């Protein structure tokens, strides 16, 4: 039962503007298509997005009424104006928040159509949980297994930066590029991170997660990211949603930042519990 939690992002750097006149395209390395699943089903457990300058509305559709009701507008989401870090602030506004979720099915292709103002940048990211994704054995733990193996706590800096192209992922940066204190042979359960400057999406990627991305929003109103994966686990108590890697592999754990503003440098401090034994489950 290979299990995975995968982050995908779709964006458009400069919209045409108008009523549902623009369609987002998947970022480099990401996909709008639901992969072939053994169980045939997965679920989007979290989704967030932003418009760079104005209010916007996004319609999420795919081919199944069991997923998004209808193919006309499906599930519509508003991205509100500037108050509290909304549109124009380039933060990360909730669209689907746990414990709510959206079912997705093998072979479906998600479509994001947007109502926006011309020349805006729009960016949407989402986490999909696949109970049984062939070829992947992602390394995730739950809080109980982390606590049972806990040795100490560590916060490690990684200065990944958003792309000069709005909405795109910036250059990859290894988690040991700016701070090398990860210890080989110890296991690290990432509970979340903190940032100096809010951004829409931060992605983690590595072979221990099947080389798929996972990640989280890092902008208002979800800027309290120090316990994001732990909180996600609390909302899905029967799931293992805390990512784990071995310190020997720090060089292949890559961070990327996507933001609706260009070249944002959030200054990421990753918060992790160091474990003597592997807390991953499954």
């Amino acid at each position, binding site marked *: 039962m290979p299990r995975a939690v995968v982050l995908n992002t779709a964006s458009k750097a400069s919209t045409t503007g108008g009523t549902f006149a623009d369609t987002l395209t998947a970022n480099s390395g990401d996909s709008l298509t639901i992969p072939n699943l053994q169980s045939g089903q997965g679920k989007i457990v979290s989704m967030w997005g932003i418009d760079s300058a104005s209010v916007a509305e996004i319609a999420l559709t795919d081919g199944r009424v069991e997923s998004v009701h209808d193919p006309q507008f499906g599930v519509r989401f508003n991205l509100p104006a500037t108050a509290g870090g909304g549109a124009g602030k380039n933060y990360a506004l909730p669209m689907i928040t746990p414990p709510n979720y959206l079912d997705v099915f093998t072979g479906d292709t998600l479509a994001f159509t947007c109502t926006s103002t011309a020349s805006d940048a729009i960016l949407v990211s989402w986490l999909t949980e696949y109970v049984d994704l062939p070829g992947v054995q992602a390394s995730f733990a739950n809080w109980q297994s982390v606590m049972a193996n806990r040795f100490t706590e560590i916060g490690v800096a990684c200065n990944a930066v958003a792309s000069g192209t709005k909405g795109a992922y910036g*250059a990859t940066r290894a988690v040991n590029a700016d701070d090398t204190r990860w210890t080989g042979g110890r296991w690290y359960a990432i509970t979340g991170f903190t940032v100096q400057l809010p951004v829409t999406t931060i992605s983690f990627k590595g072979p221990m997660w099947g080389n798929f991305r996972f990640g989280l929003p890092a902008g208002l109103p979800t800027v309290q990211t120090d316990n994001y994966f732990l909180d996600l686990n609390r909302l899905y108590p029967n799931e293992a949603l805390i990512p784990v890697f071995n310190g020997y592999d720090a060089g292949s754990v890559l961070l990327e930042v996507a933001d609706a503003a260009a070249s944002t440098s959030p200054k990421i401090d990753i918060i992790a519990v160091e474990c003597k034994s592997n807390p991953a489950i499954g």
Partner: protein
Amino acid sequence: MADYTHTDLQVVGRHVPDGAGGPFDSMDHAKAAGHDTINPVTGVYEIGVIIEGAFYPFLVEKASLVFDRIEAAKAQASADAASEPQPTAPAEGEAAASGPQAGGATPAQPYEPQG
């Protein structure tokens, strides 16, 4: 009358680039700092007031957003200038008095906003 201690405060803005630097002199240096462009607009733009010499920011925005809007405003101003009504063609009598005119020229149309 309100008991103001300061009046006529000056509103000012300043760009505070990221400490990692930029623009860079090569892509290698840009990449080392995590950027995928050689000339990124980094850091934040602070808008605030000066109170007895002290800067007090009341708005901090990502710098690239502010400069994006400045560029958009410049582009809009250029577009507006280009679409302004041209001087009307001289009257026939004046045209005749000023000499021969290139054939086939159509008089400029006044600008009419769309929508």
